[in-house]
């Protein structure tokens, strides 16, 4: 037992590093009060180290801590991209002018990010309902505070309060659902639950209610319609860095969890055919349920985004729509779908972070988040404007950008699984999405800037960060074989 625990700890190094980073930041924050980004660099170091340990885990496939945590290619993939997202967010935070006035409290900020990172990494690894819930709550509670971090801003405060109330209720409902699920299957471990479900449960009604309640909680986390209402308000109110973190990292983590939960728990593992098509356990139409929600998300997200003026709010709706596209990969119940989700998430990371980053740069330098006021920015800040154009084009899914590859695989998987209606909705909504993305581009380029508006220039590091996001976005549109390979080899979920 001790051996097992020790071994498990050995497999838990990335998380442990993050915990340690958290502690170091708390301590460091007590002693160092310089204006420099010391805590930020510590966070960065911690993330890099955690990243190193995560990469060391490649190829492992086992369950540790008495089947509580899975260390499998799937988890490793998600953890890696979470850490990557974390690294970018730390860089963003260092560049953010918004956070400048909170310099004295910046240690707190990074500490909360570390907490959130820990929660997210555990979300994608946990194989036990209790641990899942704990990880989810850890992530959520940290993010509640982070959203309200810019205390003096009315909007920030408001959004954090909305977020916590909404989040608390959702997780409460989810917890109730978990309790029912655990009750009918008498287990907290998802593999055991799966066995119990395959063996047959009599109380299908209760089972279904519990699934639905869990979906409420998970849907809240990935901001899928109709559980998305918090997202626009929170994204708009939160600092850009945190909005980006929520839109990218938190969403990725939630998808990791949702995939593991559904594909382990509700798939008849005997029914996985050689062609890669799975069979859902009879009696629970969760695939159709999620499919409907995905369709709704695409429609509502894209349509509502049409009328937004705040770029963060627009990106919030767009990320709702993207959640719909991503979810398509799960509902079709094939391995191809899973691969497609992973490809999508990886590319989504770059393009969405990129869009948020440029939004932040413009907020820093031009002082606006309003798309209307972006007019003429294409001439004042050509580099950033072109980059934003590319990110938005990628989000639309036009080649030669990564966004196309992402859509290509998701659509492809759905077509090959025969979900034509869903793909058609996805196609139509993609066209709609063109409008609001291109509107930003149009405002930037098709209007002359004010006569006396100065040129905007950025320092070297800002540009480097920009390129770090831009190059993968473009490159993945042209050559994506490695990503494909990685995604293919990462879909193996332990016990599935």
């Amino acid at each position, binding site marked *: 037992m001790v051996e097992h625990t020790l071994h498990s700890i050995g497999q838990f190094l990335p998380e442990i590093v993050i915990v340690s980073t958290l502690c170091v930041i708390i301590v460091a924050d007590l002693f160092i009060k310089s204006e420099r980004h010391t805590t930020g660099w510590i966070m960065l170091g911690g993330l890099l180290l955690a990243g190193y340990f995560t990469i060391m885990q490649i190829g492992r496939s086992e369950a540790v801590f008495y089947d509580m945590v899975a260390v499998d290619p799937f988890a490793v993939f998600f953890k890696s991209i979470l850490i990557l997202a974390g690294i970018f967010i730390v860089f963003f935070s260092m560049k953010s002018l918004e956070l400048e006035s909170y310099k004295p409290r910046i240690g707190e900020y990074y500490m909360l990010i570390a907490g959130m990172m820990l929660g997210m990494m555990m979300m994608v690894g946990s194989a036990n309902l209790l641990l899942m819930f704990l990880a989810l709550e850890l992530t959520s509670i940290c993010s509640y505070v982070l959203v309200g971090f810019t205390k003096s801003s009315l909007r920030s405060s408001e959004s954090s309060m909305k977020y916590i109330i909404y989040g608390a209720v959702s997780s409460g409902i989810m917890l109730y659902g978990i309790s029912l699920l655990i009750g009918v299957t008498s287990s907290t471990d998802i593999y055991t639950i799966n066995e119990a479900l395959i063996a047959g449960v009599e109380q299908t009604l209760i089972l279904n209610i519990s699934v639905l309640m869990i979906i409420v909680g998970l849907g809240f986390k990935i901001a899928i319609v109709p559980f998305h209402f918090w997202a626009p308000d929170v994204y708009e109110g939160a600092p850009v860095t945190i909005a980006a973190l929520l839109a990218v990292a938190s969403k990725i983590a939630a998808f990791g969890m949702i995939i593991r939960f559904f594909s382990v728990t509700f798939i008849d593992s005997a029914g996985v*055919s*050689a*062609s*890669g*098509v799975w069979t859902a356990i009879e009696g629970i139409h969760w695939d159709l349920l999620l499919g409907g929600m995905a369709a709704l998300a695409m429609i509502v997200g894209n349509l509502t985004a049409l009328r937004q003026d705040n770029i963060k709010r627009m990106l919030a709706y767009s990320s709702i729509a993207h959640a719909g596209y991503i979810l398509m990969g799960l509902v079709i119940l*094939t*391995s*191809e779908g899973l*691969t497609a989700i992973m490809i999508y998430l990886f590319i989504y990371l770059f393009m969405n972070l990129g869009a948020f980053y440029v939004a932040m740069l413009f907020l820093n330098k031009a002082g606006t988040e309003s798309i209307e006021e972006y007019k003429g920015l294409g001439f004042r800040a050509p580099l950033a404007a072109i980059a934003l154009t590319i990110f938005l*084009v990628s989000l639309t899914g*036009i*080649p*030669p950008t990564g966004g*196309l590859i992402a*859509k*290509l695989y998701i*659509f*492809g998987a759905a*077509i*090959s699984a*025969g979900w*034509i209606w869903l*793909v*058609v909705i996805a*196609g*139509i909504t*993609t*066209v709609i999405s*063109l*409008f609001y993305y*291109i509107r930003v581009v*149009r405002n930037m*380029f*098709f209007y002359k800037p004010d006569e006396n508006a100065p040129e905007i220039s950025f320092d070297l590091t800002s540009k480097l960060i920009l390129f770090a996001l831009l190059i993968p976005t473009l490159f993945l*549109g042209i*050559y*994506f*074989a490695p990503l*494909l*390979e990685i995604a*293919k080899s990462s879909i193996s979920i332990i016990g599935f």
Partner: protein
Amino acid sequence: MELHIFGIGILTWIVFIPIVGMIIVLLLPDKNRNAIRWTAAVATGIQVVLAGVIFAVFDRTKLGINDAESFQFVEKFSWITVEAVPWVGRIEISYFMGIDGLSVLMIILTSLISFIGVISSWNIEKMVKGYFALYLLLVTGMMGVFVALDFFLFFIFWEVMLLPMYFLIGLWGGPRREYAAIKFFLYTFVGGILMLLTMLALYFSVAYTDPATGQSVHTFNILHMMNPANYVDGGLLSGVDTTWRYVAWMALFINFAIKIPLFPFHTWLPDAHVEAPTPISVILAGVLLKLGTYGLLRINFPIFPDGTIYFMYFMAILGMISIIYGAFCAMAQDDFKKLIAYSSISHMGIVVLGIAALNTQGMVGGVLQMFNHGIITAVLFLAVGVLYDRTHKRGLNDFGGIANQMPKYTGLAMIGMFAALGLPGLNGFVSELFSFLGAFEAYKWITIISVTGIIITAGYILWTIQRVFLGKTPEKLTGLNDLTPREVLMFVPLIALIIFLGVYPSPAIKLMNSSLGYLVEFVTNGGF
């Protein structure tokens, strides 16, 4: 037939030379406008030379269409290959380029029009660097579509054109350019999505057996998609004459019909043409529209022979409506550019009618008409551009008596006009003749109705000539300068081609005769 320059295939050169030019343009300082222009001219000029080389060494007897062996200048590299995993099989996307009789003329057309477009862009003064960078990117996209044999590659090139075009219309266009640009973007993007979905459906329905390893490989290779034996059992598009195959055919057709543009998908064209700057109109009408019909012939026809035969009449009727409708609408216009835009719709209708006949004459006529129409509308748009540069007007009623002021210009423009009218001895006639001949064999009444279009065409062309060139010169138009040497330079090669191909089209027809004959046979046999 293979040809390598410095170890790189000639097709890669011809496609990516503009990209090289674009990079150089981007690196040049903003101020140095002439260097930027010359870079673009040299890049497209090299393309013309390469196209000339291709024309010279192209083997006229090889068939192409579905047979990888008989494609020429083939370049095939594995681009994305993902080794087999049990439930997906191997995935393959390749950098697969090659040309056959169907594409070779289009390559020549594209390089020529692009080059002339650069010459006519010489007087663009606004944001020169951005303009030429986007222009060259656009050229790469167009050229790429014509050489790609991998559907994915085809799609990439297809969509790459979108954004440059959007900006070129939107930034350098006329007063309503924003509307025109977004309309163009929207239409084409809708088509693009349809093509994307169909492409994916095809991809998952097609798997060929790799002879080396015996693995089943999903592929985007267009040629493999043409082989019914490669369709997997139970695939969405497997079988013959299934509803899904018709749906897929229709989706692709709509995409291409938008580009052509065929009634009723045409309304983006007049707006785009009117607002676009002259060189972009030239490119748009000269090359971009041909992508639509080319796509039909390269993708729709051989991959879905069943659908093509099923929808033959449908295509022919749309072609007929476009011919008549476009001609009437052209007659109703007061704006010179709009008139030419609608005449393009009418003339592209002839292409569709010709290829819908599914016989050799129609097919050859249709493809030749694509080429000829490219040349002719280029001349017409250049002609409008010349007048616009001098007077800043485009209304037909704003002009009159130009013939007295600018005799050289009038002569050249009139040749273009008469070619558009289908005057024998000029190239438009030859292709119209063969298109109609082919169509008449397949559809008597549809063709007879379509041929009335040539009367209407004569009507609007002559009326235009009368309003613009003839009559007394109004006061405000006196003192216009005749063509400058640069302008003469851009007209002359096109006019020479118009006359030469009108008198002796054989060199052009020889290029494609065997390929198109084979395509017809292939489609009418249902692809077996």
